[in-house]
């Protein structure tokens, strides 16, 4: 018996969008088996994970808040992945963005430096500096690849741990709140250093709107601009891209800069909009989950908006499953990984047909 993958003659537009939905269903079924193996009801788990969070106003808001960093990061990553460049270190760029943007909040704490200009500039400066530092941090693997041919996959991944330890050190050392009873956290940010809310009393901060704007702008750039064309061409036919006169090195730097900046922006939005201070850990793995979001959204900014909500659902559902069903939180991570595998497999099947040849041939 021989198993072959034969390229399909044509690729239908419908299949391209049915595939991720099918992948989601497949992942749910396999996840159900996992839940059953843990001795719990898969049906109940399905409702806790995917239905209950959609039934209440507060959890819908929570959904948007959780989807915000995922969407921002994934939109940036889609530029890299489209160009066949693998930035696996968005988690690190997210942390650096949050830490360095947050640093401005610490520097201006208690009205410091606001005597001349006032305080209006603090939030924009935090956002800009967070994005800028995420950009610089992402340029490290990009430059290593361009100059020395080092695999960006490894370097970007390893820089995540450096970023985590950097933040951990800072909040335990130089940035620790002196009046914080020795807890490893910074002071709470001043109101002038936190993102405004979209509606009073709600949970939606300005970052949610920012994520929406980022996705729409990215959709326009990807579909209509020459830069978007360049990104798609380099990923689809690198030799043709060289023939078109596009420089692979410049493009590598550009897409890493974009994804780093957006991850950094997501980081500072999370810190200034959600957490309100710096602490040893500011991300439950958004930078990694965003990789799944990017693929589930078919590397298209609009698809990513939807996929971001789906993955945000697993975070919220996972938290309540932990409480109501005593399911381990790691199950959420396992499910997310499962989902990525299913999405990638579905992608293969939209491009190839599985042919199983037995000993006898027609």
């Amino acid at each position, binding site marked *: 018996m021989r198993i072959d993958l034969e390229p399909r003659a044509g690729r239908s537009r419908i299949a391209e969008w049915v595939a991720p939905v099918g992948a989601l269903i497949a992942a749910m079924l396999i996840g159900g088996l996992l839940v059953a193996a843990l001795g719990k009801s898969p049906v109940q788990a399905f409702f806790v994970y995917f239905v209950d969070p959609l039934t209440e106003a507060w959890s819908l808001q929570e959904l948007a808040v959780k989807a915000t960093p995922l969407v921002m990061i994934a939109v940036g990553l889609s530029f890299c992945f489209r160009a066949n460049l693998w930035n696996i270190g968005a988690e690190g760029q997210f942390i650096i963005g949050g830490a360095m943007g947050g640093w401005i909040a610490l520097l201006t704490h208690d009205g410091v430096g606001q005597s001349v200009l006032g305080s209006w500039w603090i939030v924009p400066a935090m956002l800009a500096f967070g994005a800028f530092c995420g950009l610089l941090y992402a340029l490290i693997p990009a430059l290593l690849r361009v100059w020395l041919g080092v695999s960006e996959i490894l370097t970007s991944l390893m820089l995540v741990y450096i970023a985590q330890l950097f933040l951990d050190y800072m909040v335990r050392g130089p940035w620790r709140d002196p009046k914080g009873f020795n807890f490893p956290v910074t002071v709470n940010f001043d109101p002038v250093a936190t993102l405004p809310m979209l509606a009073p009393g709600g949970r939606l901060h300005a970052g949610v709107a920012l994520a929406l704007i980022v996705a729409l702008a990215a959709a326009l750039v990807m579909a209509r601009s020459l830069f978007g064309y360049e990104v798609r*061409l380099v990923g689809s036919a690198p030799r*043709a891209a060289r023939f*078109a006169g596009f420089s692979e090195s410049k493009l590598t730097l550009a897409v890493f800069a974009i994804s780093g900046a957006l991850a950094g922006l997501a980081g500072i939005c999370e810190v200034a909009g959600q957490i309100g201070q710096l602490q040893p850990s500011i991300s439950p793995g958004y930078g990694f989950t965003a990789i799944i979001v990017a693929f589930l959204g078919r590397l298209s900014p609009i698809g990513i908006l939807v996929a971001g909500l789906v993955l945000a659902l697993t975070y919220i559902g996972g938290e309540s499953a932990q409480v109501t069903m005593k399911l381990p939180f790691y199950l959420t991570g396992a499910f997310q990984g499962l989902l990525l595998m299913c999405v990638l497999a579905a992608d293969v099947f939209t491009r190839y047909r599985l042919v199983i040849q037995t000993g006898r041939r027609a």
Partner: protein
Amino acid sequence: MIEAPVSKDQAAAEPLVRIRGVTKRFGSFTANDNIDLDLFAGENHALLGENGAGKSTLVKMIYGLIAPTEGTILWRGAAVALKNPEEARALGIGMVFQHFSLFDNLTVAENVALSLPRTESLKTVPDRISDIASRYGFALEPDRPVWTLSAGQRQRIEIVRCLLQDPHLLILDEPTSVLTPQEAEALFGVLDRLRGEGRALLYISHKLDEVKRICDRATVLRHGKVVATCNPREESARSLAALMVGSQVKDVKAAADRTYGGERIRVDGLNLPAGDMHGVSLQSISMSVRGGEVLGVAGIAGNGQSELFAALSGEAAARDANAIRFDGGAVGADGVTQRRRRNAAFVPEERNGHAAAPDFSLSENVVLSRHAESGVTRSGFVDYGRAQNLAGSIISSYDVRKAGPDPAARTLSGGNLQKFVVGREILREPGVLIIDQPTWGVDAAAAAAIRQAILDLAARGAAVVVISQDLDELFEISDRIAVIHMGRLSEAKPAGAVTREEIGLLMAGTASGDARAH
């Protein structure tokens, strides 16, 4: 259908291979349609047809690579269903592919040993190679690493691999496409001996002169069907071509009296080190092409053609800006886009993945080489409407056949995609055109259209460099011909005043007194 002229003793003899009613379908596409074919021991049988006529599909079925949808293949009178090439080889069927499967870093003997059963000792292989080489009268050093060998020598390795199995039927797929005229001559000698030993040869080609010279019978395929079986010696090259394409092939016409303008391309002592270990470095290349002139660059594959194209197109920039001048402007250090802005256009050899992005639509592929033009992009944004209009005019001017309004490039046949790519560049009315293998793997009608378009462009005053491994093509359209060999370009000679033999010797590197030639 023309009747098969089978000789009397053949009619009496049982054919070695008898193919009856073989059909192969891929989805809705019928690659082979009800094929009948007999192969006899001791004959050299040509399988003629254009690209896409179904030749490869047919031989793949004979060699066990794919299974027929319908019909039977009989071997010595008994029906066989070959599951894989191993079974075909066990019967005594050998095949020499057009593209060699050799490991460049291994020696000749090691490459041959890889195709032998594991029980064979590597120590005995060099002797067996020498045996076969001396029996068929060719030279092959068992200890040479493959990357030091010419294409002709590499092909001999593949032939030796087959002969070690002592095949009754040897299939050769376009064996001369990578050879010099002299190397091809040597191959014909080997083939004559093989036939003399009573082996059957199935010789796939679209080079008609060659088939007329060495083949006893020819089966012509068109659109997957057998349209004729004939004695090629009794046919003219023209009548065979007409059988292949199903209509008379148009002659390409050059303007009666060509007038040349000023110098538009000048290359002076261009040096370019090889990009990688197996690449070719260009050494002091010089050329000068005037407006209205077509310069042909002949040469065997792998002698620096792609490197020369990359240097001229700007994909590989030279260190010295003055080494290349277009219309007097030094462009040697410029990239592709800057050279295009100087009204130069380029068509690389490989259509899919180099000249065009296979998964992109035709209109998106227009943007590929024309994004630097005003109108196609505006302040960083692509005007896809304009790109679609341009695609439309290329498609109608160059008769590009396609399915759907704006299909992906990969859905086009080779000839149609090549017409599109050539049209994309020529419709710009470039002053300089560099084109590599303009009609490689393209059907005869499309090839004639492309050559005519090149000549017409030159007649309108452009300077054209055509790099090609097809000598017929170069003699047909060039004003002057130069030969590239191991990264050096010979002096260009007027096409009317140089013979094929002279060009052949230059291609082999023997005429220049080059000490490194083997």
